[in-house]
């Protein structure tokens, strides 16, 4: 009967493809929108996850997310260093500064100033140059994606050329990636590219520039408070949880692990912006599409076959057997539709890396999508099953 059930499903070509299309489209919408949402949200705390050296991040208690501008005084670094159990504590600058390219174009950049002495907080993977090159005056390391994107320069511009104004609106001009030796200006101050690094794109997709803390202070507008965060390493054998509490008690600041800081940032974006709602609507629509098209079509498919189920019931097929047929049909449709939808999402994901579109398909997304498709199929097949169970076999004589 299993083969007969499958033949009934595959044989009704129009409905089968309709069910498949509905489920595939629902899976695609749910998984693709979820992946973009996760990708986008991951960018909000990408910097924290990229910086692996510290055990704790010390910030102003009112700071809600990683790009929130609530800097600390320089003296706070020493206060944190004085807490028992701290191996080292270094300042970190993180702020948005306007960069002027040799072409005269302006780009807002995410400038990260790391400790001059230790270079702790620097990029995890420098692909050209060395992080130590940041010790040279006026030096910056730029992110490799932006070097060929927002920071790309006309091919005829040689490294080291000073600013030449030209028609930036002319998109036909061939461009090359910004490279070591290229010069740009940050707040009217000269900055020389000494390296390229891989970084997680920021939420607003600005170019990321690494420099030293001292250099960053010179680039940034004058301010009494310039320490964005303090990176802390616990002494070996020190309980990080206890150290957190000690820092908070003794400094009045808050100390967070990388995961806690990431969650705090994520929570801000989730609760204070309309992003989750917008994506939630898209994901919900995907689910509704699945219910409206696939669920309803599967239910209709069962209704169309009700007379055949009735005939089989009259011929001695038990309810369990008929329900098994319906469940098999729903299950196969679900697996195929889910597979196509997730496959399309994965294909989409493979085409987007390196572009501006955030996409991150974590393992939970296929699971959630599968659960949504399962709900659609189980729901519609349960409704169908009720019709089959309630089907009076004597009905077959009434057609």
């Amino acid at each position, binding site marked *: *009967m299993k083969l*007969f059930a499958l*033949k009934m499903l595959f044989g009704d070509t129009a409905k089968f493809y309709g069910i498949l299309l509905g489920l595939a489209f629902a899976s695609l919408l749910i998984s693709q929108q979820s992946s973009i949402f996760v990708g986008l949200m991951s960018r909000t705390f990408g910097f924290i996850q990229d910086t692996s050296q510290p055990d704790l991040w010390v910030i102003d208690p009112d700071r809600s997310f990683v790009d929130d501008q609530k800097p600390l005084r320089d003296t706070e670094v020493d206060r944190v260093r004085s807490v028992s159990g701290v191996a080292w504590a270094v300042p970190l600058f993180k702020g948005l500064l306007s960069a002027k390219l040799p072409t005269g174009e302006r780009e807002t950049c995410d400038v990260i100033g790391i400790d001059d002495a230790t270079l702790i907080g620097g990029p995890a993977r420098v692909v050209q140059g060395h992080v130590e090159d940041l010790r040279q005056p006026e030096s910056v390391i730029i992110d490799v994606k932006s070097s060929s994107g927002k920071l790309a320069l006309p091919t005829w511009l040689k490294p080291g050329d000073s600013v030449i104004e030209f028609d930036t609106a002319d998109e036909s001009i061939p461009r090359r990636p910004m490279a070591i030796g290229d010069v740009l200006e940050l707040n009217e101050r000269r900055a020389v590219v000494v390296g390229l690094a891989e970084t997680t794109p920021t939420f607003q997709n600005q170019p990321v520039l690494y420099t030293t803390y001292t250099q960053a202070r010179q680039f940034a507008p004058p301010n009494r408070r310039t320490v964005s965060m303090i990176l802390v390493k616990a002494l070996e054998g020190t309980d990080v949880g206890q150290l957190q509490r000690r820092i908070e008690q003794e400094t009045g600041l808050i100390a967070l692990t990388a995961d806690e800081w990431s969650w705090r940032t994520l929570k801000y974006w989730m609760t204070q912006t309309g992003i989750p709602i917008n994506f939630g609507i898209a994901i919900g629509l995907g689910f509704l599409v699945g219910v409206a098209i696939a669920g309803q079509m599967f239910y209709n498919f069962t209704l169309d076959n009700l007379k055949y189920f009735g*005939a089989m019931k009259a*011929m001695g097929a*038990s309810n369990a057997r008929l329900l098994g047929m319906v469940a098999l049909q729903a299950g196969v449709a679900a697996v195929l539709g889910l597979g196509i939808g997730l496959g399309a999402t994965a294909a989409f994901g493979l085409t987007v890396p390196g572009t501006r579109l955030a996409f991150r398909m974590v393992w939970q997304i296929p699971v959630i999508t599968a659960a949504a498709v399962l709900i659609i199929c189980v729901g519609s097949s349960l409704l169908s099953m009720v019709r089959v169970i309630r089907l*009076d076999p004597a009905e*077959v*004589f009434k*057609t």
Partner: protein
Amino acid sequence: MIATSVNAAVSLKGVTKTFGKGDSAVTALRGADIEALYGQATFLVGPSGCGKTTLISIVAGLLHRDGGDLSVLGTDLGSLSGSQLTRWRSESVGFIFQAFNLIPQLTVAENVAIPLVIRGESRRAAVRTAGDLLAKVGLEGRERSKPSKLSGGQQQRVAIARSLVHNPRILVCDEPTSALDATLGRHIMQLITAVSSAPDRAVLVVTHDDRIFNFADRIVHMDDGRVTHVELGGHQLAHAAATESHS
């Protein structure tokens, strides 16, 4: 156990059936008495709504009676549980439906094989058996065709093959010729009555089609939920005449 004729495959005495309750209750059978004998085709005739379909549904184990006595193939169907009744149907009853009810996505042979598969036979063996039976109803070579590729008469022959494939002892036919022209109708009835001539099998036919009354051994006339009278059918009369001329 109710008292029945020795040769009765089906025996109903005072069977009643009402659908619904209260003001909306509809009484379909008001004490129907019928006997259908082995080796005979018993036709149930009467106007629409007289209770014919309800009666064959009860005989086939698809509906439960409210009252009266019922014995089909020596079994009181009222004493069987739901699962026993389902199993009894799969083993004992063959169905021919007015609308054929052939599953369009399956091949002709697979449609015929359904009762065997329901009984637990493997699909391959069941389809092989179905192929043999299709040859007997004149559809050799059409095993792999889809029902939609067959004419109405051919589809009805498939339905007949399906009703017989598991060798049931009682065959229940609902308006088997209503969708067919006179010639095809006669041909189909020849096939059905050939089945009924088996001494261990009985055929019940519900029909409005008086063109086929001559194929009946007995014609049971019903009206308003009751049997009004029973007469010998053309088949039985022809048989009696033939016997008389021989003697």
